[in-house]
């Protein structure tokens, strides 16, 4: 399992850091022997680390799920910060509430005004709680719909980032019409007159993910996953046994490669060995190019062509 590898790379990173800080002091006092010895140690550790990451070339679907859920993986705010400028956050559904599990607003992408939004899991414990770990309430979907409509009015392309364990299964969410909110979002997205690009960056589970991804183009990060339900939920429904997760992950066809083979993902964005958190900048660069290229293609289409294009994508499934 990839988590064992990451435990080791983390330990090595810590050791390298310790030695490097020691080196700074040694440099001042001029103890050359010790200094060169340490340099060798660092080289050796770095070699160990890259050998370890080399083992990440052949990962199981369950490993992909693990990486997709890593808390240090780039999240929506990181992507917005790296790929967009002049971001203005839009808040609330303007009906009754604000849901922090969906984050977004208006920004420039290569000087083009776009609406950008997606699931937000949060990084700190407080943020995780406020965002319910990226599980939206109906208000979150209604907030997204408000933003979709505003984008359409001003002819702005829409870019969504998908990363959610699913819509929140709570009493209030049900009382406020979780199903209805998701259904409306699907119906609205299917008929938007502007280009829609979705990027699955982490885990895309069930209707909660689909509700923001009825897009003309669906891009997936290499280690992102997209599935009908969480592997845990899948296990308990189908096997009545949550210990069969490894098997479930393999049966679900949830990796980016499998989605691509099934013609659901249009493009895969490469990630460094071990995943985006090991070198986010390379991922931002490649994603930037991919979004730009797809956006330029879609901008050549008329509103009716965009609708027909999106319709075809989902109608043939």
């Amino acid at each position: 399992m990839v988590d064992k590898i990451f435990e080791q790379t983390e330990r090595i990173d810590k050791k390298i850091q310790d030695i490097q800080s020691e080196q700074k002091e040694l440099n001042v006092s001029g103890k050359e022997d010790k200094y060169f010895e340490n340099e060798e140690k660092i080289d050796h550790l770095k070699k160990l680390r890259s050998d370890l990451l080399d083992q990440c070339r052949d990962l199981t679907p369950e490993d992909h799920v693990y990486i997709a859920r890593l808390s240090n993986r780039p999240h929506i705010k990181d992507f917005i910060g790296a790929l967009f400028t002049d971001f203005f956050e839009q808040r609330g559904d303007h009906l009754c509430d604000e849901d922090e599990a969906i984050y977004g607003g208006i920004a420039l992408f290569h000087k083009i005004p776009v609406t950008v939004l997606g699931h937000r899991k949060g990084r700190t414990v407080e943020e995780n709680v406020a965002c319910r770990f990226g599980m939206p309430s109906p208000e979150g979907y209604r907030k997204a719909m408000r933003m979709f409509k505003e984008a359409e009015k001003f002819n702005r392309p829409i870019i969504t980032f998908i990363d959610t364990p699913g819509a929140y299964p709570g009493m209030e969410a049900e009382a406020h019409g979780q199903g209805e909110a998701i259904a409306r979002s699907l119906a609205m997205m299917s008929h938007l007159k502007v280009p829609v690009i979705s990027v699955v960056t982490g885990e895309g589970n069930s209707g909660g993910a689909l509700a923001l991804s009825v897009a003309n183009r669906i891009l997936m990060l290499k280690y992102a996953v997209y599935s009908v339900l969480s592997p845990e939920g899948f296990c308990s429904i189908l096997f009545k046994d949550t210990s069969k997760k490894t098997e479930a992950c393999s049966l679900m066809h949830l990796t980016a490669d499998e989605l691509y083979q099934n013609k659901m993902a249009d493009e895969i964005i490469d990630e460094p060995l071990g995943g985006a958190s090991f070198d986010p900048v390379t991922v931002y660069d490649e994603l930037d190019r991919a979004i730009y290229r797809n956006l330029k293609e879609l901008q050549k289409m008329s509103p009716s062509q965009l609708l027909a294009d999106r319709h075809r994508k989902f109608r043939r499934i």
Partner: protein
Amino acid sequence: MTEEYIDTDPFEMCKGCHRRSRRSQWESHYYVCPVCGKYKNVSAGYRFSLIFDNKSFKVINRGITSDDPLNFPGYKEKLRSVKERTHLNETAVAAVGKISGVKTVAVVLDSRFFMGSMSQAAGERITRAIEAADKHKLPLVIFSASGGARMQEGMFSLWQMAKTADAVEEFSRNGGLYISVLTHPTTGGVTASFATLGDITLAEPGALIGFAGPRVIEQTIGKKLPKGFQRAEYLYQHGFVDAIVERSELKKTLTKLLMLHGCKVTGGTPW
């Protein structure tokens, strides 16, 4: 087409009160328990015969059956055995007939087939029924019931939500009338797609209707759910259902709604 189950026992037990009643009594009570009033799940054929004039209707899209898009171990065999046991060949059955003289497309989801789970074939049958209603400018009535996604079909099941929602939206923009009838149980992706997109939403008394299943919610919030939660009456109270309609009153209500939407109905206005 009538009740698919062939049984020689003249009595049938209610799943609610466990009391046994005569089949003839069940029938005259529209398969609502004569003792406790609990609604029994009924077949597509029965629903069609209940709403269509002279019990006359034509089943459409019956040829579309479940494939095995993910090559899921054991799925083909399971499909075969469920088909044999239930004498059904998919969750969704669509038909055309006349409701009080108004030609209408109706779809019934039968929860007895694979727990009414949404398969690619079911989604395709529903979508084609919506498209047929759109093409021929006919009203559409869908009786929803579903336990959620067909797990064995993975993403192919999930995307039926987008496909059907797209079809309903197109139908709606072209002026089509869609009456959604929520029956027990309507959950998961069906609730989060076409079932909640009707112009008018009706529900059968006591039907469980929700997105997340009660067990999942209980696990998440760590406490028992109150009685009546996610029932038709609860949704009615919370503003997601226009009316809760007794099965015996259903045809009358549909007729009234068709009339109010400009359709020429026959047989007077007995409401």
